């Protein structure tokens, strides 16, 4: 196990290095630069700015400088948000995204897993059909439509929940719901199909033959076997809630990392693009290692090597 984790860390570092390299050169391939605005700055001023941030040097040199700074844990300074360093931006914005995303992931799991299981048990019956319709809806409706609908109905018409910011617990309801709807639907579908598969297995018949109650049958014998695909989905889900929260953050005016991430690209804020990308890549790689370990804990047949 220890050896496996070391191996995975080495692999993860390699992955992150590749991500750094690709992102660095790709972002420089995009036409434009951080100082090209509608209100044109004079060529002289642009050159001065480029020089200040080291953008005048040849790319390989910039790349080398970036890597050297990175090994010191320095992600550089934002070229658009004057005077703010990337480390500071991430540490101030990430907790906001983490709270929103964490709550959404939690909701997706707590609602999606039972929903999918209920659908599987009642296969072909009314409950199953209703759940399938909701799940299809959740996957098909884009988040901006959902956000607007939620805002209009619960915020404006019914005046139940605030529509912007994250001041209190009440503020979380709408954005969390909007962000969690898609993964909830996805997990419900995953769970339904894997539960159907598991319920047809011989060991479920054995459990029935023992005289076990439906509750024990489902929650002891079926769930642990059926949940593996959902655990696998946790890695991509994390990426989705952190980057996909962009739309939700914009609409509900939440100062999270998602908007910084997307905003940095359109603003050509090179250090911020790099910083947020590296941060998210690290998060996802870590998550995948955790998922693998969770796998081993759930299914003893899986060998980590």
């Amino acid at each position: 196990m220890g050896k496996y984790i070391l191996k995975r860390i080495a692999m993860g570092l390699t992955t992150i290095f590749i991500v750094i390299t690709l992102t660095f050169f790709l972002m420089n391939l995009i036409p434009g630069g951080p100082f090209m605005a509608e209100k044109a700055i004079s060529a002289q001023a642009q050159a001065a700015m480029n020089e200040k941030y080291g953008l005048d040097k040849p790319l390989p040199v910039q790349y080398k400088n970036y890597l050297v700074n990175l090994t010191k844990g320095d992600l550089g300074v934002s070229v658009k948000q004057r005077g703010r360093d990337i480390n500071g931006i991430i540490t101030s914005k990430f907790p906001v995204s983490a709270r929103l995303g964490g709550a959404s992931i939690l909701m997706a799991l707590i609602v999606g897993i039972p929903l999918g299981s209920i659908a599987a048990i009642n296969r072909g019956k009314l409950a199953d059909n209703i759940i399938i319709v909701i799940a299809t809806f959740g996957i098909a409706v884009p988040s901006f439509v959902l956000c607007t609908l939620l805002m209009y109905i619960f915020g404006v018409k019914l005046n139940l929940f605030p529509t912007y910011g994250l001041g209190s617990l009440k503020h979380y309801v709408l954005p969390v719901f909007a962000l969690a709807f898609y993964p909830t639907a996805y997990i419900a579908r995953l769970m339904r199909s894997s539960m159907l598969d598991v319920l047809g297995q011989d060991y479920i018949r054995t459990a029935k033959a023992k005289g076990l109650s439906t509750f024990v049958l489902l929650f002891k014998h079926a769930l642990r076997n059926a949940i593996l695909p959902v655990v696998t989905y946790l890695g991509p889900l994390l990426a989705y809630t952190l980057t996909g929260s962009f739309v939700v953050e914009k609409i509900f005016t939440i100062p999270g990392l998602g908007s910084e991430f997307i905003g940095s690209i359109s603003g050509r804020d090179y250090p911020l693009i790099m910083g947020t990308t590296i941060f998210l890549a690290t998060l996802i790689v870590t998550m995948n290692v955790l998922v693998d370990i969770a796998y081993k804990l759930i299914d003893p047949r899986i060998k980590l090597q």
Partner: protein
Amino acid sequence: MSDQENYMLKINNLRTSFFTPVGEVKALNNVTFAMKEGDVLGIVGESGSGKSVTSYSLLGLLAYPGKIVGGTIRFNGHEIEKKTEAEMRKIRGDEVSIIFQDPMTSLNPVYTVGNQIVEVIRLHTDKDAAAAQARAKELLELVGINEAEKRLKQYPHELSGGMRQRVMIAIALACEPKLLIADEPTTALDVTIQAQILELMIELKNKLGMSIIMITHDLGIVSNMCEKIAVMYAGKILEYGTVDEIFYTPRHEYTKGLLRSIPNLMDREHKKLVPIEGTPVDMLKPPKGCPFAPRCESCMRICLEHMPEVVHFSDTHYSACWLNQKDEWTKESVEA
């Protein structure tokens, strides 16, 4: 019959159907048989003949869309066909238990062997965790697994097929059932392991005194293990008798066909095995007369029209075949 009360299991005119989208499949048609305590009954027949459905009906394990539509099942004082699912749960695994065909897939891969044995003990008895654990160990020793203590902590994938079937037997015997149903318990095992498992079952039967229903398509197993045999075809018992009666004086053409298709090591010359020609009946459209008639070499006109009555040849031996009622049907057809 005066000794009716002595029967531990009495199935009368049992009819079970599966209501599929394309129509009702009558999986069991008036199945009738009885077993006394300690009896070993073999149910033989080809795939789809209703062997397993019979035992699933008895256990209340019929999967949707299967349903008992008629007849009675008396087991150990219970009126099984009237029981609710909750009542059946108390009986299943306690008074009657079952061993399935494939031990490789019949144990839950994510729980230890011990966990899966202890579970059924704690469900049906009031033993505490420690006592149940001790009983589980005792059971593993009973079914011939060495290092029981260690095995309890192992997962199914760490055991061989034969060993897993022994664990299945241990689970089935955990609450000392009155009746053990073995649904092709050795089909998925290789031949030497098969013999060991069958020997173990006979040994345990003698030790614990339970009754066994042995479901199989292997007549060799039946002749070794069972006292009585029910030959099933298309959801009906076509012939029933003791092992000797079935093997030496079969009274149904289907039974004769089955016996002809067994290889015999003692044959001097290489004899070709004789298969039963044709394919099993379409259960959605069962024939009017005897279900075996379309494949029967001695099929007569009446066989296609009317299902023959059951004829008793001895207290234990009966069969449903027009050939045994020659006098009657000739008389009838002459009159007609």
